[in-house]
Protein backbone atom coordinates (compact mmCIF):
# COMPACT_ATOMS: atom_id res chain seq x y z
CA UNK A 1 0.00 0.00 0.00
CA UNK A 2 1.64 3.26 -1.05
CA UNK A 3 1.22 6.55 0.78
CA UNK A 4 -1.32 7.88 -1.71
CA UNK A 5 -3.48 4.82 -1.05
CA UNK A 6 -3.18 5.40 2.70
CA UNK A 7 -4.41 8.97 2.18
CA UNK A 8 -7.29 7.84 -0.03
CA UNK A 9 -8.32 5.31 2.63
CA UNK A 10 -8.36 8.04 5.26
CA UNK A 11 -10.52 10.55 3.36
CA UNK A 12 -14.02 9.01 3.81
CA UNK A 13 -13.34 8.41 7.52
CA UNK A 14 -12.42 12.04 8.06
CA UNK A 15 -15.20 13.42 5.87
CA UNK A 16 -17.79 11.49 7.92
CA UNK A 17 -16.73 13.58 10.89
CA UNK A 18 -17.21 16.79 8.89
CA UNK A 19 -13.52 17.37 8.15
CA UNK A 20 -13.08 18.90 4.70
CA UNK A 21 -10.58 16.84 2.68
CA UNK A 22 -8.81 17.51 -0.60
CA UNK A 23 -6.08 15.38 -2.14
CA UNK A 24 -3.64 17.73 -3.85
CA UNK A 25 -1.32 16.08 -6.33
CA UNK A 26 1.14 18.57 -7.75
CA UNK A 27 4.41 16.68 -7.47
CA UNK A 28 3.53 14.47 -4.51
CA UNK A 29 0.24 13.48 -2.88
CA UNK A 30 -0.69 15.87 -0.08
CA UNK A 31 -3.95 15.64 1.85
CA UNK A 32 -5.33 19.06 2.77
CA UNK A 33 -7.76 19.14 5.70
CA UNK A 34 -9.93 21.83 7.25
CA UNK A 35 -12.09 21.84 10.34
CA UNK A 36 -13.24 24.10 13.16
CA UNK A 37 -13.20 23.46 16.89
CA UNK A 38 -13.85 25.29 20.12
CA UNK A 39 -10.43 26.25 21.43
CA UNK A 40 -9.05 24.93 24.69
CA UNK A 41 -8.53 27.61 27.28
CA UNK A 42 -6.95 27.22 30.73
CA UNK A 43 -9.19 29.91 32.16
CA UNK A 44 -12.35 28.60 30.51
CA UNK A 45 -13.20 32.03 29.24
CA UNK A 46 -16.28 30.85 27.47
CA UNK A 47 -18.91 31.94 30.01
CA UNK A 48 -22.22 33.64 30.37
CA UNK A 49 -22.56 36.49 32.84
CA UNK A 50 -26.01 36.20 34.36
CA UNK A 51 -25.88 39.63 35.99
CA UNK A 52 -24.89 41.34 32.80
CA UNK A 53 -26.27 41.44 29.32
CA UNK A 54 -22.76 40.88 28.02
CA UNK A 55 -22.09 37.39 26.73
CA UNK A 56 -18.61 36.31 25.74
CA UNK A 57 -18.17 33.14 23.77
CA UNK A 58 -14.72 32.22 22.53
CA UNK A 59 -14.63 32.17 18.73
CA UNK A 60 -14.17 28.91 16.88
CA UNK A 61 -10.65 27.99 15.92
CA UNK A 62 -10.15 27.25 12.21
CA UNK A 63 -7.61 24.56 11.52
CA UNK A 64 -5.99 24.01 8.15
CA UNK A 65 -3.73 20.97 7.99
CA UNK A 66 -1.71 19.02 5.47
CA UNK A 67 -0.47 15.44 5.55
CA UNK A 68 2.38 14.43 3.29
CA UNK A 69 5.16 11.85 3.20
CA UNK A 70 8.39 13.62 4.06
CA UNK A 71 10.76 13.13 1.11
CA UNK A 72 13.71 13.71 3.44
CA UNK A 73 12.76 11.68 6.53
CA UNK A 74 10.52 9.08 4.85
CA UNK A 75 7.76 9.32 7.46
CA UNK A 76 4.33 11.00 7.43
CA UNK A 77 4.54 14.68 8.23
CA UNK A 78 1.80 16.85 9.73
CA UNK A 79 1.63 20.54 8.88
CA UNK A 80 -0.98 22.88 10.26
CA UNK A 81 -2.02 26.45 10.58
CA UNK A 82 -4.49 27.95 13.05
CA UNK A 83 -6.74 30.98 12.64
CA UNK A 84 -9.21 32.70 14.89
CA UNK A 85 -10.57 35.00 12.26
CA UNK A 86 -9.85 32.98 9.14
CA UNK A 87 -7.17 35.43 8.01
CA UNK A 88 -4.25 35.91 10.37
CA UNK A 89 -2.44 32.71 11.27
CA UNK A 90 -0.73 31.99 14.57
CA UNK A 91 3.00 32.65 14.41
CA UNK A 92 4.09 32.33 18.03
CA UNK A 93 4.76 28.96 19.63
CA UNK A 94 3.38 30.14 22.95
CA UNK A 95 0.05 30.95 21.31
CA UNK A 96 -0.12 27.40 19.91
CA UNK A 97 0.88 25.94 23.27
CA UNK A 98 -1.92 27.85 25.01
CA UNK A 99 -4.40 25.87 22.91
CA UNK A 100 -2.90 22.49 23.83
CA UNK A 101 -3.61 20.50 26.98
CA UNK A 102 -1.10 21.53 29.69
CA UNK A 103 0.24 17.98 30.09
CA UNK A 104 1.22 17.90 26.38
CA UNK A 105 2.84 21.33 26.11
CA UNK A 106 6.35 20.17 26.94
CA UNK A 107 6.29 17.48 24.25
CA UNK A 108 4.69 19.84 21.76
CA UNK A 109 7.25 22.57 22.27
CA UNK A 110 10.05 20.10 21.46
CA UNK A 111 8.29 18.66 18.43
CA UNK A 112 6.88 21.78 16.75
CA UNK A 113 8.64 24.02 14.25
CA UNK A 114 7.55 26.55 11.64
CA UNK A 115 8.67 26.52 8.02
CA UNK A 116 7.66 26.20 4.37
CA UNK A 117 4.25 24.69 3.69
CA UNK A 118 4.56 21.82 1.19
CA UNK A 119 1.31 22.65 -0.62
CA UNK A 120 1.67 26.40 -1.12
CA UNK A 121 4.20 29.22 -1.10
CA UNK A 122 3.23 30.01 2.50
CA UNK A 123 4.48 28.91 5.88
CA UNK A 124 2.96 26.59 8.45
CA UNK A 125 3.70 24.83 11.68
CA UNK A 126 4.79 21.20 11.51
CA UNK A 127 5.58 18.28 13.75
CA UNK A 128 9.26 17.64 13.27
CA UNK A 129 9.80 14.36 11.41
CA UNK A 130 12.70 13.40 13.71
CA UNK A 131 10.19 13.07 16.53
CA UNK A 132 7.87 11.05 14.28
CA UNK A 133 10.68 8.67 13.49
CA UNK A 134 11.24 7.97 17.17
CA UNK A 135 7.55 7.16 17.45
CA UNK A 136 7.67 4.66 14.57
CA UNK A 137 10.76 2.94 15.97
CA UNK A 138 8.84 2.12 19.13
CA UNK A 139 5.47 1.50 17.47
CA UNK A 140 6.94 -1.03 14.98
CA UNK A 141 4.23 -0.46 12.38
CA UNK A 142 4.82 -1.49 8.81
CA UNK A 143 4.16 1.03 6.03
CA UNK A 144 2.01 -1.67 4.44
CA UNK A 145 -0.23 -1.90 7.47
CA UNK A 146 -3.69 -0.38 6.93
CA UNK A 147 -3.46 1.20 10.40
CA UNK A 148 -0.16 2.98 9.54
CA UNK A 149 -1.70 6.44 9.24
CA UNK A 150 -4.41 6.06 11.91
CA UNK A 151 -1.82 5.07 14.50
CA UNK A 152 0.41 7.95 13.43
CA UNK A 153 -2.58 10.30 13.86
CA UNK A 154 -2.88 9.05 17.46
CA UNK A 155 0.73 10.17 17.96
CA UNK A 156 0.00 13.59 16.44
CA UNK A 157 -3.02 13.88 18.73
CA UNK A 158 -0.81 13.16 21.74
CA UNK A 159 1.10 16.32 20.89
CA UNK A 160 -1.71 18.59 19.72
CA UNK A 161 -4.78 17.54 21.68
CA UNK A 162 -7.43 18.93 21.64
CA UNK A 163 -6.76 20.72 18.33
CA UNK A 164 -6.78 17.37 16.49
CA UNK A 165 -9.77 15.92 18.37
CA UNK A 166 -12.00 15.81 15.25
CA UNK A 167 -9.49 13.47 13.59
CA UNK A 168 -9.58 11.12 16.58
CA UNK A 169 -13.37 11.26 16.69
CA UNK A 170 -13.37 10.38 13.00
CA UNK A 171 -11.13 7.37 13.59
CA UNK A 172 -13.36 6.33 16.51
CA UNK A 173 -16.34 6.45 14.16
CA UNK A 174 -18.05 9.42 15.83
CA UNK A 175 -19.96 11.46 13.26
CA UNK A 176 -20.03 15.27 13.53
Amino acid sequence: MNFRQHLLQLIPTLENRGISCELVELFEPILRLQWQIKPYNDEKNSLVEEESEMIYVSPDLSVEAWIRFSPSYQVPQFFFQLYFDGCVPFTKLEDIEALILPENRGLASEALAIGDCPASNGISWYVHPCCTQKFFYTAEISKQDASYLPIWILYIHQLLSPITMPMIEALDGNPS
Partner: protein
Amino acid sequence: MKQQRDSIPELVWNGNISVEIHQKENSLTYLANLPRHSYFAQILEDLKRLFAPKVALEECWLSSGKASIKWHWPVGVLYDLLSQEDPESATSVPVLWHLVFHVGSFPSSLVVPMGSMETFRTCFFNALKESDYVRNGSSSLVIALSKPETDTYWNSLLNHDFYDYRPIATKLFTSKSRIIPLKIYLGADAPIVQSSASLGYTLGQVLHKQLPRLFPSAVMYSLLKPVLHGIVLPSTVSTDIMNRDFCYPDGFLHIVLIPIST
Protein backbone atom coordinates in the same frame (compact mmCIF):
# COMPACT_ATOMS: atom_id res chain seq x y z
CA MET B 1 42.90 21.56 4.31
CA LYS B 2 44.65 23.71 1.74
CA GLN B 3 42.21 25.32 -0.67
CA GLN B 4 43.13 26.16 -4.19
CA ARG B 5 42.55 29.86 -4.76
CA ASP B 6 39.88 30.73 -7.31
CA SER B 7 38.57 27.18 -7.24
CA ILE B 8 34.98 26.81 -8.39
CA PRO B 9 33.71 26.51 -4.81
CA GLU B 10 35.48 29.74 -3.89
CA LEU B 11 34.17 31.53 -6.98
CA VAL B 12 30.65 30.35 -6.13
CA TRP B 13 31.16 31.46 -2.52
CA ASN B 14 32.14 34.94 -3.69
CA GLY B 15 29.12 35.41 -5.93
CA ASN B 16 27.07 38.32 -4.67
CA ILE B 17 24.03 40.46 -5.42
CA SER B 18 24.00 44.24 -5.09
CA VAL B 19 20.92 45.41 -3.19
CA GLU B 20 19.36 48.79 -2.56
CA ILE B 21 16.81 48.84 0.26
CA HIS B 22 14.66 51.79 1.16
CA GLN B 23 11.57 52.47 3.21
CA LYS B 24 8.65 54.48 1.87
CA GLU B 25 8.70 58.10 2.99
CA ASN B 26 12.17 57.67 4.40
CA SER B 27 15.12 59.37 2.70
CA LEU B 28 17.63 56.81 3.96
CA THR B 29 18.87 54.02 1.70
CA TYR B 30 20.72 50.82 2.54
CA LEU B 31 23.22 49.64 -0.08
CA ALA B 32 25.20 46.40 0.11
CA ASN B 33 26.71 43.55 -1.84
CA LEU B 34 25.17 40.46 -0.29
CA PRO B 35 26.74 37.04 -0.85
CA ARG B 36 24.39 34.81 -2.80
CA HIS B 37 24.63 32.11 -0.15
CA SER B 38 23.80 34.51 2.71
CA TYR B 39 20.38 35.28 4.13
CA PHE B 40 18.40 38.49 4.60
CA ALA B 41 18.06 37.42 8.23
CA GLN B 42 21.70 38.43 8.59
CA ILE B 43 20.99 42.10 7.80
CA LEU B 44 17.51 42.49 9.29
CA GLU B 45 18.88 43.89 12.56
CA ASP B 46 20.97 46.45 10.64
CA LEU B 47 17.96 47.46 8.58
CA LYS B 48 15.83 47.86 11.70
CA ARG B 49 18.53 50.01 13.32
CA LEU B 50 18.66 52.21 10.22
CA PHE B 51 14.97 52.55 9.38
CA ALA B 52 12.99 51.75 12.53
CA PRO B 53 15.20 51.55 15.62
CA LYS B 54 12.32 51.58 18.08
CA VAL B 55 10.33 48.78 16.48
CA ALA B 56 10.50 45.08 17.42
CA LEU B 57 12.52 42.99 14.99
CA GLU B 58 9.65 40.56 14.45
CA GLU B 59 7.52 43.34 12.97
CA CYS B 60 10.08 44.03 10.22
CA TRP B 61 10.00 42.50 6.77
CA LEU B 62 11.12 43.09 3.19
CA SER B 63 9.45 42.97 -0.18
CA SER B 64 10.57 42.84 -3.78
CA GLY B 65 7.77 44.01 -6.03
CA LYS B 66 4.68 42.19 -4.77
CA ALA B 67 6.65 39.35 -3.20
CA SER B 68 7.40 39.14 0.52
CA ILE B 69 10.99 38.13 1.17
CA LYS B 70 11.50 34.87 3.05
CA TRP B 71 14.53 35.63 5.17
CA HIS B 72 15.22 31.91 5.67
CA TRP B 73 15.88 31.32 1.95
CA PRO B 74 19.33 32.18 0.54
CA VAL B 75 19.66 35.62 -1.09
CA GLY B 76 20.81 34.14 -4.40
CA VAL B 77 17.85 31.76 -4.57
CA LEU B 78 15.43 34.61 -3.88
CA TYR B 79 17.01 36.82 -6.54
CA ASP B 80 17.01 34.11 -9.24
CA LEU B 81 13.42 33.18 -8.35
CA LEU B 82 11.94 36.66 -8.10
CA SER B 83 13.88 38.35 -10.91
CA GLN B 84 13.39 35.41 -13.30
CA GLU B 85 16.39 36.90 -15.02
CA ASP B 86 17.90 34.66 -17.69
CA PRO B 87 21.67 34.59 -17.06
CA GLU B 88 22.25 33.57 -20.66
CA SER B 89 20.68 36.76 -21.98
CA ALA B 90 22.00 39.11 -19.29
CA THR B 91 23.12 42.53 -20.48
CA SER B 92 26.33 44.13 -19.40
CA VAL B 93 24.47 46.39 -16.95
CA PRO B 94 25.29 45.40 -13.35
CA VAL B 95 22.41 44.06 -11.28
CA LEU B 96 20.96 46.29 -8.55
CA TRP B 97 18.10 44.61 -6.73
CA HIS B 98 15.59 47.07 -5.26
CA LEU B 99 13.77 46.03 -2.10
CA VAL B 100 11.46 47.79 0.33
CA PHE B 101 11.67 47.63 4.12
CA HIS B 102 8.34 47.46 5.96
CA VAL B 103 7.12 47.70 9.52
CA GLY B 104 3.73 46.36 10.50
CA SER B 105 1.07 44.55 8.41
CA PHE B 106 3.38 41.57 8.70
CA PRO B 107 2.64 38.93 6.01
CA SER B 108 2.31 36.19 8.60
CA SER B 109 0.98 33.57 6.19
CA LEU B 110 4.07 33.93 3.99
CA VAL B 111 7.01 34.88 6.22
CA VAL B 112 8.18 33.54 9.59
CA PRO B 113 8.54 36.44 12.04
CA MET B 114 12.15 36.71 13.09
CA GLY B 115 12.22 37.40 16.80
CA SER B 116 15.99 37.18 17.03
CA MET B 117 19.07 35.74 15.35
CA GLU B 118 18.45 32.59 17.42
CA THR B 119 15.30 32.02 15.32
CA PHE B 120 17.44 32.14 12.18
CA ARG B 121 20.15 29.92 13.66
CA THR B 122 17.56 27.27 14.61
CA CYS B 123 16.04 27.42 11.14
CA PHE B 124 19.43 27.13 9.43
CA PHE B 125 20.62 24.18 11.48
CA ASN B 126 17.27 22.40 11.05
CA ALA B 127 17.83 22.64 7.29
CA LEU B 128 21.43 21.47 7.63
CA LYS B 129 20.37 18.45 9.70
CA GLU B 130 17.67 17.66 7.15
CA SER B 131 20.14 17.73 4.26
CA ASP B 132 22.48 15.51 6.32
CA TYR B 133 19.59 13.11 6.88
CA VAL B 134 18.86 12.90 3.15
CA ARG B 135 22.52 12.18 2.41
CA ASN B 136 23.26 9.73 5.17
CA GLY B 137 19.98 8.40 6.56
CA SER B 138 20.60 10.24 9.82
CA SER B 139 21.68 13.69 10.97
CA SER B 140 24.65 12.15 12.76
CA LEU B 141 27.36 14.07 10.89
CA VAL B 142 25.89 17.42 11.86
CA ILE B 143 25.09 16.29 15.39
CA ALA B 144 28.63 14.93 15.73
CA LEU B 145 30.19 18.32 14.97
CA SER B 146 31.93 19.63 18.05
CA LYS B 147 30.75 22.90 19.53
CA PRO B 148 33.81 24.74 18.16
CA GLU B 149 33.11 23.27 14.70
CA THR B 150 29.43 24.21 14.88
CA ASP B 151 30.29 27.73 15.98
CA THR B 152 32.99 28.01 13.29
CA TYR B 153 30.53 26.90 10.62
CA TRP B 154 27.88 29.35 11.82
CA ASN B 155 30.36 32.21 12.09
CA SER B 156 31.80 31.46 8.64
CA LEU B 157 28.34 32.07 7.26
CA LEU B 158 27.89 35.29 9.25
CA ASN B 159 31.40 36.55 8.49
CA HIS B 160 31.58 35.30 4.88
CA ASP B 161 34.75 33.31 5.61
CA PHE B 162 35.34 30.67 2.91
CA TYR B 163 38.44 29.18 4.55
CA ASP B 164 36.59 28.44 7.78
CA TYR B 165 33.50 27.26 5.90
CA ARG B 166 34.96 24.94 3.29
CA PRO B 167 36.66 22.23 5.40
CA ILE B 168 33.53 21.66 7.47
CA ALA B 169 31.26 21.77 4.43
CA THR B 170 33.46 19.22 2.67
CA LYS B 171 33.27 16.96 5.71
CA LEU B 172 29.47 17.21 5.76
CA PHE B 173 28.68 17.10 2.05
CA THR B 174 31.19 14.63 0.64
CA SER B 175 30.76 11.64 2.91
CA LYS B 176 30.33 8.10 1.56
CA SER B 177 26.72 8.87 0.69
CA ARG B 178 25.63 8.80 -2.93
CA ILE B 179 22.46 10.83 -2.39
CA ILE B 180 22.20 14.62 -2.60
CA PRO B 181 19.25 16.68 -1.35
CA LEU B 182 17.49 19.01 -3.77
CA LYS B 183 15.03 21.87 -3.51
CA ILE B 184 13.55 22.90 -6.84
CA TYR B 185 11.75 26.24 -7.20
CA LEU B 186 9.09 26.49 -9.88
CA GLY B 187 7.93 30.04 -9.26
CA ALA B 188 7.35 32.61 -6.53
CA ASP B 189 3.78 31.38 -5.97
CA ALA B 190 4.51 27.67 -6.14
CA PRO B 191 5.45 25.25 -3.39
CA ILE B 192 9.02 23.97 -3.33
CA VAL B 193 9.60 20.58 -4.90
CA GLN B 194 11.76 18.77 -2.39
CA SER B 195 13.59 15.74 -3.66
CA SER B 196 16.93 13.97 -3.89
CA ALA B 197 19.21 12.72 -6.62
CA SER B 198 21.87 10.07 -6.84
CA LEU B 199 25.48 10.71 -7.68
CA GLY B 200 26.64 9.39 -11.03
CA TYR B 201 23.89 10.97 -13.10
CA THR B 202 23.60 14.15 -15.10
CA LEU B 203 21.42 17.10 -14.17
CA GLY B 204 19.38 16.49 -17.32
CA GLN B 205 18.67 12.92 -16.26
CA VAL B 206 17.67 14.04 -12.77
CA LEU B 207 15.27 16.72 -14.00
CA HIS B 208 13.79 14.40 -16.62
CA LYS B 209 13.10 11.79 -13.93
CA GLN B 210 11.79 14.23 -11.29
CA LEU B 211 9.72 16.49 -13.57
CA PRO B 212 9.14 14.62 -16.84
CA ARG B 213 6.38 16.96 -18.04
CA LEU B 214 8.64 19.98 -17.64
CA PHE B 215 11.79 18.19 -18.85
CA PRO B 216 10.66 15.75 -21.54
CA SER B 217 14.27 15.25 -22.60
CA ALA B 218 17.26 14.36 -20.44
CA VAL B 219 19.56 16.05 -22.94
CA MET B 220 17.89 19.26 -24.07
CA TYR B 221 15.90 21.87 -22.15
CA SER B 222 12.73 22.80 -24.03
CA LEU B 223 10.40 24.59 -21.57
CA LEU B 224 12.41 25.55 -18.51
CA LYS B 225 16.06 25.73 -17.62
CA PRO B 226 17.78 25.30 -14.25
CA VAL B 227 19.59 28.19 -12.59
CA LEU B 228 21.91 27.57 -9.67
CA HIS B 229 23.95 30.41 -8.16
CA GLY B 230 22.90 32.61 -11.07
CA ILE B 231 24.31 30.17 -13.64
CA VAL B 232 22.34 28.12 -16.14
CA LEU B 233 23.70 24.63 -15.62
CA PRO B 234 24.02 22.46 -18.72
CA SER B 235 22.12 19.21 -18.78
CA THR B 236 25.39 17.32 -18.98
CA VAL B 237 26.81 18.50 -15.66
CA SER B 238 27.20 15.61 -13.26
CA THR B 239 25.51 15.42 -9.88
CA ASP B 240 28.94 14.63 -8.44
CA ILE B 241 30.28 18.03 -9.49
CA MET B 242 27.09 19.75 -8.36
CA ASN B 243 27.37 18.16 -4.93
CA ARG B 244 31.05 18.98 -4.60
CA ASP B 245 30.98 22.58 -5.82
CA PHE B 246 27.45 24.01 -5.76
CA CYS B 247 25.78 23.12 -2.47
CA TYR B 248 24.58 25.98 -0.37
CA PRO B 249 25.76 26.14 3.27
CA ASP B 250 22.56 24.38 4.42
CA GLY B 251 23.62 21.36 2.39
CA PHE B 252 20.92 21.57 -0.26
CA LEU B 253 21.23 22.18 -3.97
CA HIS B 254 18.71 24.96 -4.54
CA ILE B 255 17.70 24.96 -8.20
CA VAL B 256 15.47 27.70 -9.64
CA LEU B 257 13.65 26.92 -12.87
CA ILE B 258 13.12 29.79 -15.30
CA PRO B 259 11.25 29.78 -18.62
CA ILE B 260 13.32 29.51 -21.74
CA SER B 261 13.21 32.84 -23.57
CA THR B 262 11.50 32.57 -26.95
